[in-house]
């Protein structure tokens, strides 16, 4: 099973004016890595989900996500933004952005990994560690390690 995230899927200096641009930049990375087959199709699915309810979470987090038929492998792309990007959370913009991509027909193991990621996001220590990760390699390793429960 391929890792949930690789260094190529991390952008520690994500520059984006709004959530659309931020999501597109991260989705481009998933596309380049071959984990998403159709960039625009996938973005449509994410936008549809975002329209139901903004995915900003208190504590400076944005989690745009979708289950989409354009996704081949359950993946997350991670972006860090100093100025922050508004994801509709009541307490301000998101500095840590996780674009979560799930296939429509994912098996339970894959879904469990995504579930584990979601659970880790709630912990301040995890967010703290990601805020200070030195390079994409470190951030990806941290995420993969935490979701595997080791």
């Amino acid at each position: 099973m391929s890792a949930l995230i690789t260094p190529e899927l991390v952008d520690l200096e994500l520059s984006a004016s709004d959530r659309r641009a931020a999501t597109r930049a991260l989705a481009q990375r998933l596309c380049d890595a071959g984990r998403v087959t159709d960039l625009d199709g996938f973005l449509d699915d994410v936008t549809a989900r975002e329209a139901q309810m903004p995915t900003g979470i208190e504590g400076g987090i944005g989690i745009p996500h979708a289950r989409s038929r354009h996704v081949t492998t359950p993946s997350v792309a991670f972006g860090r933004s100093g100025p922050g990007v508004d994801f509709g959370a009541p307490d301000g913009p998101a500095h840590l952005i996780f674009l979560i991509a799930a296939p429509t027909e994912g098996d339970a193991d894959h879904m469990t990994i995504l579930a584990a990621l979601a659970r880790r996001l709630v912990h301040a220590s995890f967010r703290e560690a990601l805020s200070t990760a030195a390079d994409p390699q470190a951030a990806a390793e941290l995420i993969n390690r935490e979701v595997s429960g080791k």
Partner: protein
Amino acid sequence: MKLVAVTSCPTGIAHTYMAAEALEEAAKAAGHEIAVETQGAAGATPLDPAVIAAADAVIFAADVGVRDRERFAGKPLVQASVKAGINDAAGLISQAEQLAAAAPVGAGALAPAAESAGAMPGWNTTVEAGAGIGTRLRQWLMTGVSYMIPFVAAGGILIALSFVFGGASIATKVNGGTFQGHTYAAIIDPTKILGQVGFAGVLYFIGSTAFTMLVPILAGFIAFGMADRPGIVPGIVAGLLAVAVGAGFLGGLIGGLLAGAVTLAILQIRVPHALAGVMPVVIIPLVTALIMGVIMVVVIGQPIASAQHGLTHWLNSLSGTSGIVLGLLLGAMMAFDMGGPVNKTAYTFALAGLASGNLEVMAAVMAAGMTPPLALALATVVRPRLFTAAERRAGEAAWLLGLSFITEGAIPFAAGDPFRVIPSLMVGSAVTGALSFAFGCTSRAPHGGIWVVGLIGHPVQYVLALVCGMVISAIVVIALKTLRKPLPAEERQQAIVPARPGAVVAA
């Protein structure tokens, strides 16, 4: 304190789990035990029923319907969005604490809920995540119907027995009025019924009292199916008012749906923590009951009253038309809302006819009122697979109710699937009404059904008219139910569960 929670969100890959984790952390921080069921894409592992039973309070952090919420019925419940579960888990935990403290010791599942979890698996309270609005609507209605059926059966059979033992005059003797030239005064004090009318009168009084709860229970538990516990008060109030304004079961059905919607809307309002404790006990019941009351009395009640007036006027203007046309019309009216305003108008028209010596109208109206429960009883026997277990049980009682001219026996079926059932019943009852006129049947009794056959003119033809309408309605309802999309596998499975424990399960 022991807590249980369910989290769910539209996509089922992120918020569901974040809310679960946040609730677990917040509960731990507050020194409570919590078990969370995540109804997400990774599949839900249902909570152990023993854990639910032991829980002091329940938290739903969910943006889509909680699956099998029936399991939690009767527990103090905090209902919030999945985001509130993430952003304000500690607040939800403290609300749960306050609710649990306010709840009676040993608050557990409501008796009917416990029953439905065990012996009666036919209740469709499961509102599935992502289910279409049509499916959900049906599930809400079926929730109300499932709680109403025992009232129909108990009340209806008691009334039927009172006719069997006390004769057709029993209702008039208790309620007052004129029967076959004798005028009876209504008995105001129920404790005097036994002495003045006898035990059959008591049976009638118990049965009709149970019947007064039919519509309130239907409306209350439709709202319960939609909004859980907070829905019960506005739903029951709406149902009581539907009865008071003469809106019948269709009024109660609409009232229940509106009550559920109003409650869900009010639950969305976020309030300061200081107020959160009194919300479920005082503010939500007060506000929702007030809103529903105004809707039922002012918005729904007045148009119904004037419509009823107009219908009566129109019926009177029809005197002189052919009896068969009048029979068709009155028959269809009797089956339309089974005790509601249209049915009442037709019945009152027949009562007026009886008072002025026209016995044919009453015969047609009574026959048309007997057809609906009989037709549905027949349909449940001929095609059991088209009905839920609860409906089939209602079908068993419907034979007796139909024979006794207790049209309400058909309400559970009509409330669960109005657009198929009501037209089917109207067709059969219209035929029965017309045939009764065509055969020249008469009735000198205003109620009593088959038990007053001695007061019916041309009884053999009368029974023939009944059987024709019954068979026609049964055929139409079976056809319409067969044509609809197949039931989801899960429901179909429920539908073939044996009606009684101990019955042999067909392979």
